C-alpha cells in the first residue's frame, strides 16, 4: 500500500494516532510554533493548523502549514467555507498541493459573529459536505468544480469533524454519513468528557472510518462550567464538574481526567485529537501518563 502521508500510514496501520491543533499567530511572529511542534513531534502524527479559528483573524493556515512542512512536520490544513468563495477555496487547495501538504480537514466554519470581526461578510459559498465532494470526487478526477480540466490534480487525505454530543443526533449522523459517502477518510470529534456518550456515537460510525476523539484538558472549574453551559454538544458529567470544583490543583486534575478519558476510549477508537488553545505543553504531560494498548 502506498501511503499518501504519515497520518495516512498511521491511521491505516492501526497505530494509536495523536493529532494536535496549533493556531497560526495573530501577527507575523511564528517561530514559537516551530518550537511547539518540535516538542510534540515524537507523539504527534500531524498538526492541525486552524483556519481563523472561532472566526478570529490570524495568519493564513496555508502559510503556517508550509512553514511547518518545510521543517519536516506533517500538517493537516484546516479549511473552512466561511471566508472564501468557491474560486478562492480551489486556488488554496491547488496551492496546498503544490506546497506538498498532504492532509486537509474540511469544515463549514463558525459564523463571523463569534469572532473578533463580527462585521465581516460570511461567505459559505459551499458547505463541508460539498467541500469533501470537491476534494475527493471532483478534483482527483482532474476537474475543477466548474468541470474545467486541471493540469495535474490534487490528491489529499481528507478528514471531517463531528459533534458527537449534539442533540438531536440523527440529523448530525445523516450529515456525517454524507461526508463519508463523499470520501471522508477520518473524523475528528468535539471534545469528550462523557465517555459513554462518545462510545455510543462510535457505534453509529462505519468501522472503516477512523475516529480521533477530541481532548481539551480542563484547566479550571470555571472553564468546565463554561464549556458545559455554552458549547453545543459538550456535556460534562456531574462527577467531573465536582472533581474540578473540589481539587486543590485544577491543572493536575484536568490532566488526570484527560488521561482517564484517553485510556477509556483508546480500545474503541483510532486515536485522539488535542485542542489546547495554545497550551501545548499539557499534551506531552498527558501522553506521558497514558498507557496505550496498541
Amino acid at each position, binding site marked *: 500500500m502506498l501511503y499518501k502521508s504519515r497520518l495516512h500510514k498511521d491511521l491505516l496501520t492501526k497505530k494509536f494516532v495523536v493529532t494536535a491543533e496549533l493556531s497560526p499567530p495573530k501577527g507575523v511572529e511564528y517561530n514559537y510554533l516551530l518550537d511547539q511542534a518540535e516538542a510534540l513531534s515524537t507523539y504527534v502524527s500531524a498538526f492541525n493548523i486552524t483556519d481563523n479559528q472561532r472566526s478570529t483573524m490570524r495568519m493564513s493556515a496555508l502559510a503556517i502549514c508550509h512553514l511547518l512542512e518545510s521543517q519536516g512536520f506533517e500538517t493537516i490544513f484546516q479549511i473552512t467555507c466561511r471566508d472564501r468563495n468557491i474560486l478562492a477555496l480551489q486556488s488554496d487547495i491547488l496551492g496546498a498541493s503544490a506546497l506538498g501538504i498532504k492532509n486537509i480537514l474540511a469544515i*463549514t*466554519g463558525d459564523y463571523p*459573529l*463569534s469572532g473578533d470581526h463580527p462585521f465581516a461578510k*460570511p461567505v459559505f459559498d459551499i*458547505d463541508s*459536505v*460539498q467541500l469533501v465532494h470537491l476534494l475527493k470526487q471532483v478534483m482527483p478526477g482532474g476537474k475543477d468544480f466548474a468541470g474545467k480540466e486541471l493540469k495535474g490534480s490534487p490528491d489529499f487525505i481528507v478528514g471531517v469533524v463531528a459533534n458527537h454530543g*449534539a442533540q438531536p443526533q440523527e440529523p448530525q449522523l445523516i450529515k456525517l454519513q454524507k461526508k463519508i459517502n463523499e470520501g471522508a477518510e477520518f473524523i475528528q470529534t468535539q471534545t469528550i468528557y462523557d465517555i459513554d456518550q462518545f462510545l455510543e456515537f462510535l457505534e453509529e460510525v462505519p468501522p472503516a472510518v477512523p475516529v480521533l476523539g477530541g481532548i481539551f484538558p480542563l484547566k479550571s472549574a470555571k472553564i468546565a462550567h463554561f464549556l458545559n453551559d455554552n458549547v*453545543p454538544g459538550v456535556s460534562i458529567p456531574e462527577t467531573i464538574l465536582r472533581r474540578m470544583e473540589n481539587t486543590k490543583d485544577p491543572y493536575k486534575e484536568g490532566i488526570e481526567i484527560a488521561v482517564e478519558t484517553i485510556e477509556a476510549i483508546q480500545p474503541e477508537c483510532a486515536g485522539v485529537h488535542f485542542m489546547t488553545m495554545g497550551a501545548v505543553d499539557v499534551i506531552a504531560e498527558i501522553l506521558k501518563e497514558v498507557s496505550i494498548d496498541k
Partner: protein
Amino acid sequence: MIISDQKPFEEIAHSLKASDSIFVVGCGDCATSCATGGEKEVAQLAEKLAASGKTITGTAVIATGCDERLVKRDLKKSSLTPEDAVLVLACGSGVQAVNSVIDNYVVPGLNSLFLGKIKNLSTFDKVCSMCGECVLAKTGNICPVTRCPKHLLNGPCGGSSEGKCEVNRNNDCAWFLIYERLKKLDKLSFLNSYQPPKDNSKNNIRTRFNTERKS
C-alpha cells in the same frame, strides 16, 4: 409580502431639509399591511412634516405602489406640482416606481427589510430569500438558504443544539425544523443524498423577468 420599517423622522427630515413643499405617497398593499405606509401612516407623517413648517401639497395612497402604471395614473390626477419633493412610504420597488414616472425629487421614507410571511398583524417572518433556484421540494418546505445563516444545503452544522441556531439561540435551527418535518412525513430519506452547491448566477445578476420571453 415586502416587510418594511419606517425610517427615523430625523433621517426623513434631513433628506427633505431643502424642500419647502412636499407630496406624500403611500402604498395600499404591503406597506399598508405592515402599518408603515398606508392611509393612516401617510396622514400621520404629513401632519408631522406640516408641524415642522413644511407645506403639504397633497397625499396619495396607490393601490399597488410598485406598479408604475398605477403610480403614473394616480399621480397624474393628483395635486402634485413639479416643485414638490415626493416622500414615498413604500418599499424600494415602490420608491423606484415613483422615481421612474415623475421628474420630481423623490425621497424614500421606509427601509425594506425582507420578503415576509405574515404570522399575525404585527409579526412577520423571513422564510424565503428569492434565490432563484428553489430547494423547498427537498427540504420539507423549510428554506435552509434563508433560515440557516450559513445557507447549508446538506444538513445542520455542529453548532445546532437542542433545535436552536448557533448564531442566535433565540432562532430555531433550520435543519432541525427540516429534520422534524421530514420525520413527521416519513420522508427522512430526502436527507440522504448529496446536494450540490447553489448556482449563484440564477439570481445575482438578474434584474428583469419577462413572462413572455422567460428571460
